[in-house]
């Protein structure tokens, strides 16, 4: 609880600090090098309960990678994303611990520090497409919309290619 209070206070301070500067610009996010792996649709697309189960539908999955630059003077967070080509889009992270690959869903978003950049890349953060509605072949493109905590949505064109 205390931590949240502190964070809140910090946030307020940051806001105040921002107000004092002459030109408050906030975060300014740009995406570069946006690409997705080729992927297949799967059998029937995702089932709404998630669990495939024995003989159940197998959602086709894909992953999108990119570098997000925050040229602004305020941090932001990548919270979620949407696309027409998949039923569900989630933010995931892979970690290699020892020799074991672990994947986890990021529910609190990815921090994009002011003046910094974060790269979503194989073996790290990725935007995961679940329940593909069509195959993603090399050379294909599709649209992806990124949602941030502060910044406006960002519409991207994603190119499908082999890494």
């Amino acid at each position, binding site marked *: 609880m205390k931590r949240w209070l502190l964070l809140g206070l910090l946030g307020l301070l940051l806001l105040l600090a921002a107000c004092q500067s002459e030109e408050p610009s906030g975060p300014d996010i740009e995406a570069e090098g946006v690409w997705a*792996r*080729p*992927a*297949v649709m*799967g*059998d029937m697309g*995702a089932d709404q*309960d*998630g*669990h*495939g*189960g*024995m003989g159940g539908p*197998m*959602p086709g*999955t*894909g*992953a999108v990678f990119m570098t997000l630059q925050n040229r602004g003077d305020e941090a932001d967070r990548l919270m979620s994303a949407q696309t027409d080509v998949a*039923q*569900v889009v*989630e933010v*995931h992270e*892979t970690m*290699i611990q*020892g*020799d*074991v*690959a*672990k*994947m*986890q*869903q990021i*529910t609190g978003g990815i921090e994009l520090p002011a003046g910094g950049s974060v790269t979503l890349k*194989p*073996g790290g953060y*990725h935007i*995961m*497409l*679940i*329940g593909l509605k069509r195959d993603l072949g090399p050379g294909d493109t599709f649209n992806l919309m990124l949602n941030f905590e502060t910044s406006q949505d960002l519409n991207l064109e994603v190119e499908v290619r*082999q*890494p």
Partner: protein
Amino acid sequence: MTKRLVLVWLVVASLGVLLVACGGGDGSPAGPTESPFRGSVLSQPVPAYDFSLNDQHGQPFRLSDQRGKVVLLFFGYASCPDVCPTTLGDWKQVHARLGEDADRVRFVFITVDPERDTPERLKQHLALFHPDFIGLTGSLEELEPVYQAYGVYYEKVEAPESALGYLVNHTSSDFVIDPQGNWRLRHSFGTPIDDIVHDVRLLLED
């Protein structure tokens, strides 16, 4: 059991790192005690545990039938969006770099998610990378002894907030078997393509 094997592997891997660290720089001639390989080398080659599983086309695949060929094994799953396709993408490049020698190499992907990875699903998934790649699946009872023999760690992790329902944490390195059927090497996730090609070529020359 699995944890012990993981420990053993950690020791082997650290020894490998030590070896690399103690060895000369790149390009220096290999000393008598230095491994010519770039992956982690098993101190004593062991006969690779033999198994027979069905491939993505429903055909039986027996490891001991692959004598004369180098076999690369990787354990993963088709819904895995990152580590597994990265490895398969690397393999595709290894295959291309090997040229005609690739005919003497088997690229074998064994599922750690038999519940979802039907032969059909593996077929679709592997077709994205190379038609020659082999995907093996079966019942957990058939697969478990293979995981055990190679010290493969896998853990189904419930992901209630994810549309996938569950994810599978798993060993991310490959297992390299020489043309005589001995398990010789491992490459950790992210090993450069060059190093894998180099090691496969050395084993083919054996």
